[in-house]
C-alpha cells in the first residue's frame, strides 16, 4: 500500500494532520464503495445476491458516517457548516450558502485538522491524549 493520501511530504506533517488525511482517504473509499454497490444492486437479478449486497452497503453507510463524524469533530468550521446543511428540509444550496456565511461571520477560517478555533463558542480542545513535554 502506498502513501497516496498525503499531498505533502508526510515527515513534514503533524501527526494530527496525518490522521486527518487518513480519515479523509477512508471517507472517500467508503463513498466509492457505496457507489459501486448502488450500481451492482441496480442490475442484480438474483434476489439472494441482492440481499447480501444490500446488507453490505449498510456497513458502508455506517463506515462513511463514522468517518464523517470523526472529521467533523476535528474540524469545527466544517462541523458548523454541516450542521446547517445536513438533515434540513428545503433547498440544499440555499442552506449551504447560509451555513457557510454564518460560520465565516462567527469565527473566520479554520485550518482543518490542526489547531482550529471553532465558531459557536467551543475552543475545540478535546483530548490531548499522549501529548506531553
Amino acid at each position, binding site marked *: 500500500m502506498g502513501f497516496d493520501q498525503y499531498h505533502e511530504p508526510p515527515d513534514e506533517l503533524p501527526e494530527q494532520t496525518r490522521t486527518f488525511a487518513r480519515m479523509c482517504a477512508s471517507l472517500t473509499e467508503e463513498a466509492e464503495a457505496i457507489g459501486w454497490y448502488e450500481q451492482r444492486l441496480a442490475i442484480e437479478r438474483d434476489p439472494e445476491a441482492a440481499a447480501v449486497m444490500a446488507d453490505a452497503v449498510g456497513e458502508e453507510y455506517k463506515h462513511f458516517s463514522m468517518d464523517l463524524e470523526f472529521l467533523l469533530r476535528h474540524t469545527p468550521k466544517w462541523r458548523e457548516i454541516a450542521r446547517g446543511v445536513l438533515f434540513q428540509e428545503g433547498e440544499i444550496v440555499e442552506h449551504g450558502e447560509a451555513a457557510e456565511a454564518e460560520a465565516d461571520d462567527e469565527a473566520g477560517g479554520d485550518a482543518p485538522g490542526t489547531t482550529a478555533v471553532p465558531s459557536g463558542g467551543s475552543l475545540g480542545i*478535546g483530548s490531548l491524549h499522549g501529548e*506531553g513535554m
Partner: protein
Amino acid sequence: MSTSHLLREHAPITGAGWKLIDAEARERLLPGLAVRRLVDFSGPHGWEHSATNLGRVERTNVSELKGVEAHRRVVMPLVELRARFTVSREELRDGDRGAENVDFVSLDAAAQRIVDAENVAVFHAWPKAGIEGITASTPHKPIVRKRSFEDYPGCVARAVELLLRNGIAGPYGLALGREDYTSVVETAEHGGYPLLDHLRNVIKGPIAWAPGVNGAVVLSMRGGDFAFESGEDLSVGYESHDTEQVSLYIEESCSFRVLTPEAAVAITPPKGR
C-alpha cells in the same frame, strides 16, 4: 438569532474580537490541561448531555404497585465549571484596529482557574461535585520525596515498580504539580544530566505540567482505568456588558470516574516544610 446557550451573538464583539479572545483562551488553557493528556477522554457529548451512564441501578425497589418492580438508574451527573472574566471594550476596539498586545489579564486568570479546577478534581478529588479523584481513590501509600529533588527519578521508578507489582501495565504518564515541575526542569543531576531527561527514560510516556496538583502523580495510560467525560468542551460564552466592559466566561461540563483505583501512585512533598 442565537443558536447556543453561550449567547455569543449578543455580545458587542466583532468576529475579529472573538477570534482574539478564543485564541488567547486556547493559548492559556492548553499548557496546563494535564488531565486531557493523561486519562481517557470521551466526548464532547454536548451541553445537553447531563449524566454519565454507570450501568447500575439502586437496589431498593421503589414500586408501590403489586407485581411490578422498579429500580432507579444510578448515574453520575456532569458538573458545570464556569470562570468569569471581563474584557475592556476599549481594548477590543484596539484589537479590531490591529493592536497585537490586547490586555486579556482577566481572561488569563480565568483560564488558569479552570485549569486548576480540572486538575484538582481529577488528580485529587472534588467531593462536593461527587468526583472521587485519583489520589483520593488509590489504595497505594504515597511515595514521599526528599527535600532535594535528586532522588526524584528513584521515586518515579518506585511508583512504576509498585504499579507493575500490582499488575498494572504501562505505558505510564506523569503529572507534575507546579513546584515539582519547576524543580525538575531546573535540576541537573551529578554530571549535569537534566533531571527531566532522566524522568523521560524512567516513565517512557508523557510528562505533563499539572498546575493545582500537590506533588506529582504516576499513572497507567493503558486505557480503561480513568475516564474523563466531556459534555460541553471548554467554551467561551457571553454574560453581559456595559459601556466599559464585556463580561464573559469560560465554561465546560464534565464528569470523571476512577475505574481502577490501584492504577496510580502519588508522589508527595516531605512534611514539615
